[in-house]
């Protein structure tokens, strides 16, 4: 399997088929003499900004930390052993509600969208 081609930027869903995001980055373990092994995927704005370059990555990390507090200063990671199925989407055996991936969407719902009548 070609990692970059077949995994990167694919849609990620959790076990309830909720769309969580895209495979924004891959975390691989380099093993001498053997091909590298994927240990986790990363997703979120920090990883995306890092792909644009080192500096945008740093800025985004600072911005996110300022907005959401220290615990959001690092990209979200999902361990590769949680993967359940790779098809059109990649399904992970997790529940997005137990992670902080949707923290900003939850904030948006609680503070803005949810307050508009009819939501």
């Amino acid at each position, binding site marked *: 399997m070609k990692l*970059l081609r077949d995994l990167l930027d694919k849609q990620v869903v959790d076990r309830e088929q909720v769309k969580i995001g895209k495979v924004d980055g891959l975390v691989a373990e380099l093993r001498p003499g053997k091909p590298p092994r994927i240990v986790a995927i990363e997703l979120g704005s920090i990883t995306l900004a890092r*792909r*644009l370059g080192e500096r945008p990555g740093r800025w985004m990390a600072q911005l996110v930390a300022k907005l959401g507090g220290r615990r959001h200063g690092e990209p979200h990671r999902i361990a590769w052993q949680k993967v359940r199925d790779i098809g059109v989407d990649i399904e992970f055996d997790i529940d997005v509600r137990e992670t902080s991936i949707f923290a900003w969407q939850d904030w948006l719902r609680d503070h803005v969208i949810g307050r508009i009548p009819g939501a």
Partner: protein
Amino acid sequence: MAHQTPALTFSGRHLRLDFLCLLLLLGMSAGCSSSDPIEQQSRTAASAAQTVSMLLDAWMGGAAPFAYTAGTLQSVSKTLADAEAQIRSAGTAEPAKQAALTAAVKDMSVAVARAQAGLQAGNRAEVQNAQQDLRLASRSLSTAYSRYFAPKP
């Protein structure tokens, strides 16, 4: 970070292409002379006058509602005032012929103002008179226009 390099070259190539396009554009814009404001504005004024004439016919036939007619007249009077100002301020070698154009557009504005007054008062006879004025002004604009753009003797 393996995917970073291709992205960089991509954006680099992009920039160079953009730059080439820009150069090409600047060359072309410099090469083609911009269209003459007098010609452009005279045509705009002529179209505006025809619009009013058609509109007033429709209004008198009951086909154009009052609010629309009034709004259009107001908008056209702005267009005409603007055209007049632009023709007046355009640089030209023939001030007399230019003045004839300006005068014709001015007559149009006056006719449109008369139509506006007639419309507000609901006076159909006045609107008809204004249409007559407008027709005359259009004719003098077209004469002045052909004189202005006549081949030099």
